[in-house]
C-alpha cells in the first residue's frame, strides 16, 4: 500500500478562506438589510449592529485580500485591467459602502473631473479602496472624501478623512515593507495587498504605488494609490 499523500495545507487555507468569505458576505448582506430598515431611534442595538457590520466587513476584506494574494502567488488570478469610468467606479463604491457609513453617521463625498476614464483592474482597485474606506470609517470623526485626479501622468485615487491621521512610523514613502501595528489592530495585510495590486499595474516602464500621508483637504489621514 502506498501511503496517502499528505494534502497541501495552503490549499486548505485557500479553500477555507473562500468558504468563510461566502458566509461573511451573507452575514454582512443581512446586517446591511437590517440597518437599512432601522435607525438609532427605533432600535437600541443599532450602534452595536453598525460595529458588527464594520467588523464583518473587515474580516471579509482580509479574507478577500488573502485569497487574491494566494491566487496571484499561484499565477491563477485573472488580472484584467480595462477602461473604467471613475464616475461609475464611485457609484459602485457608494452602493457598497452606503449602509456602513450611514450607520456610523459618516458623510461620504466624491470628487473627480467629469468624464475621467483610466485603465485598471476594477475588481482589484475596488478591493483596495473598500479596504481604505472601511479603515477610514474607524478613524474619521465624521467625513470621508474619495478623490481622483491625474497627476503627472498617473491616476491618483485618494481616500481622505478628518480623523487623527496615521501614526508617524507608518507615514512615508511607500517603501516600508509592512505597516504592522498590533496596538492599532493592523496586521499590514491591507497595505501589503494594496502595494501588490499597485505594483501589478504597469505601463510604459512605470508601476503603481501606495502613499500614506497626513493632512489633505480634511486634515486627517490620506491614503493614496497611484496608477500609471
Amino acid at each position, binding site marked *: 500500500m502506498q501511503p496517502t499523500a499528505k494534502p497541501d495545507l495552503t490549499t486548505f487555507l485557500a479553500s477555507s478562506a*473562500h468558504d468563510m468569505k*461566502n458566509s461573511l*458576505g*451573507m452575514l454582512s*448582506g443581512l446586517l*446591511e438589510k437590517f440597518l437599512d430598515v432601522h435607525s438609532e431611534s427605533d432600535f437600541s442595538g443599532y450602534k452595536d449592529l453598525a460595529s458588527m457590520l464594520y467588523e464583518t466587513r473587515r474580516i471579509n476584506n482580509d479574507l*478577500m485580500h488573502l*485569497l*487574491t494574494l494566494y*491566487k496571484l502567488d499561484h*499565477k*491563477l*488570478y*485573472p*488580472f484584467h*485591467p*480595462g*477602461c473604467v*469610468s471613475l*464616475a*461609475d467606479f464611485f*457609484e*459602485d463604491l457608494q*452602493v*457598497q459602502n*452606503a449602509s456602513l457609513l450611514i450607520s456610523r453617521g459618516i458623510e461620504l463625498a466624491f470628487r473627480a473631473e467629469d*468624464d475621467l*476614464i483610466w*485603465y485598471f483592474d476594477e*475588481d482589484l482597485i475596488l478591493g483596495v479602496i473598500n479596504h481604505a474606506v472601511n479603515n477610514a470609517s474607524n478613524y474619521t470623526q465624521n467625513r470621508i472624501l474619495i478623490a481622483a485626479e491625474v497627476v503627472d501622468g498617473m491616476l491618483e485615487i485618494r481616500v481622505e478623512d478628518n480623523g487623527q491621521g496615521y501614526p508617524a512610523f507608518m507615514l512615508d514613502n511607500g517603501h516600508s515593507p509592512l505597516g504592522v501595528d498590533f496596538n492599532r489592530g493592523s496586521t499590514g495585510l491591507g497595505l501589503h495587498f494594496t502595494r501588490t495590486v499597485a505594483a501589478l499595474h*504597469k*505601463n*510604459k516602464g512605470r508601476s503603481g504605488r501606495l502613499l500614506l500621508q497626513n493632512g489633505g483637504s480634511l486634515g486627517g489621514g490620506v491614503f493614496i494609490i497611484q496608477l500609471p
Partner: protein
Amino acid sequence: MADQISDFSQYRALVVDDFAAMRSMLAEMLRSYGARNIDMAANGKEACGHLSVRQYDIVLCDFNLGAGKNGQQILEEAKVRNWIGPMCAWIMITAEQTPDSVHGAVEYQPDGYLIKPVNAALLFQRLGRILARKSAFAEINTKLKRNDYRGAIAMCDVKIEQEKSNASELLRWKSQMLMSIGEIEQARELFEKVLNERDVAWARVGLAEVRQREGDFEGSCKLLRQVIADLPAHVKAYDLLAQGLEKLGLLEEARATLENAARLSPNSPVRQKNMGELALRCGDVETAEAAFRKSMAVGENSVLKTPDSYIGLARIMGNRQQTEEASRLLNKLPQTFEDTAVHIRAKAVEGMIYQKNGQDKEAERVAADLSGMMKNAAMHADSAASLEAAELFFSTGRKDDAVALLSDVVRNNPEDQALMGKVSQAYSNAGLTEEGQIWMKQARDDATAQMNEGVLLARDGKLPEAVASMRRAVAAMPSNVRVLLNCGHVMLLSLQKRNDPALKREALEVLLTANSLLPGDKRCTRLLNQLEAMD
C-alpha cells in the same frame, strides 16, 4: 454621471437558478425596477427551451446549477446557436470571485459577473450600465447582423469619435472585425496605435496574432512570452503561443504551454482535444488518451464539444487492436453530433481501423455502408470528411467513389492551396500520383467551364439562361466562393433589367453564403450593397 438605464419595463428577462427562492427573489428585484415580462428556468434544459423560442434583453443566470449544464455552458450554447444577439445583457451570478469560466474565450463571456449575495442596488447599477452601453453599440450591431462588416467598421470609427467612454471597447471590436475579414495590415496599425499610448494586453496579443497571420512565428512567440511574463493568467496568450510553437516545430514546449493553459482553464473541450493531438505528435499516447477523455467529459453538456476527441481516442484504441471498443465509441457520434459530416467521418475512421487491423471483411462492409450513406442528399460532407472517406474508399477498392469525392473537393475549393495539397497527398498515398494530377486538373477545368458558361451568357445578354446556368453551377459547387459571387453578380444583372422579388431573395441567400465562407470579401460586400440599394 455615466449614461444609465433605470426603467426596465420594455425589457424581456430570463432568470435561471436552481433554487426556487433565489429565482423568485431575483424576479422580484426585476419587477421592482419595472420589468414585466419575466420567465424562469430551474436548469440548463429549461433555460435552453426558453432561449430557443424567445428573444431576451436580460438574462440573470446562476453559474452553478447542479447536474447538467452550468451557466457558462448555457451562455455558450445561446451564443453559438444565435439564440441571443449582442444586444442581450447576460449577467452571471457566482458564489466565488473567479470561476474557471472567467477565462472563457472572449466571444463567450458574459457582460458581467455578480457575486452572491446579490445586492439589488448593485445589480441594477450594473445592468443599467450594460444596457446603456449596448444601446450605444446598436447601430454597429444592426450592420453586423446583415454581415456588413465594412459598414460596421465605418460606424465604429464614427462612434469612437463620439463616445469617449466606449472608445477602448469600440477599438477592440473594430480590431476583431478587421481580423475576421482579413484586413491584417489595418488591424496591425490599430494595435500599434493603441500600444503607442498604453501597454494594453488585448492589443499586445492582437499584434502577436497579426505576426502569426503574416507567418512571423518567431516574432509572435517572442511577444506572447512577454505577455505571459507580465500576465501569467492570460489564457488566450498561452493558446496562441502553443499554436506558434507548434508551427516552429517546438512540440514539447507547445505542449507544456497548452498544459499551463489547461491548468488555468480546464473546462474547454477544444483545448483538451488540442492537448491530446499534441501529445500524440510527441509520441505520448497515455497523455493523449487522458486528454481526449477529458475533452469528452467536459464537453458532455457543452455545445463546444468536438468530434475530434472521440475520433482521436478511437484511433488510439484501433492502434491497440481494440477494434470493437473503437467502433462502439465511433457509433456514439451520430447521436452526439447533429452535423452529418461527423457521421461520415465516424464511418470512414471505423472502416480504416478495421482495415489497418487486417479485418478486411469488416472494412469492406463499412465502406459499402458509407458509399450508400453518401449518396443520400441529406448527408453533407465537408472537406475533412471527404478526405477521410476517400482514404477508406481507396483502401477498400472503391476507387471511383474516392475520385468522385476528391473531385468534388477540388471543384468547391480550387483556390485553397493547403487543401489541394492534401488532395494530391491522398492520391499519392493511394499510389495514384500522376493520375491524381490529371483528375485534379479536370475537376478544376470543369469548375471553370461551368462558371464561365453563365458569365458568357450574361455578357451576350441572355440573362434568363445565364441565371439558370449559374444556379446549376451553385448546385454543383455550393461552397465555391467565386461561383457564388458570379452567381450573385449575374442575378443582380438580371434584377437590374427586371425586378423579381423571389430572385432578389435568392440572390441575397447566395451572397450571404459567400459572405459566411469568406467574411467581408470586398466584392461580396459591394454586391450585397448593390442588392440592398435596389427597390
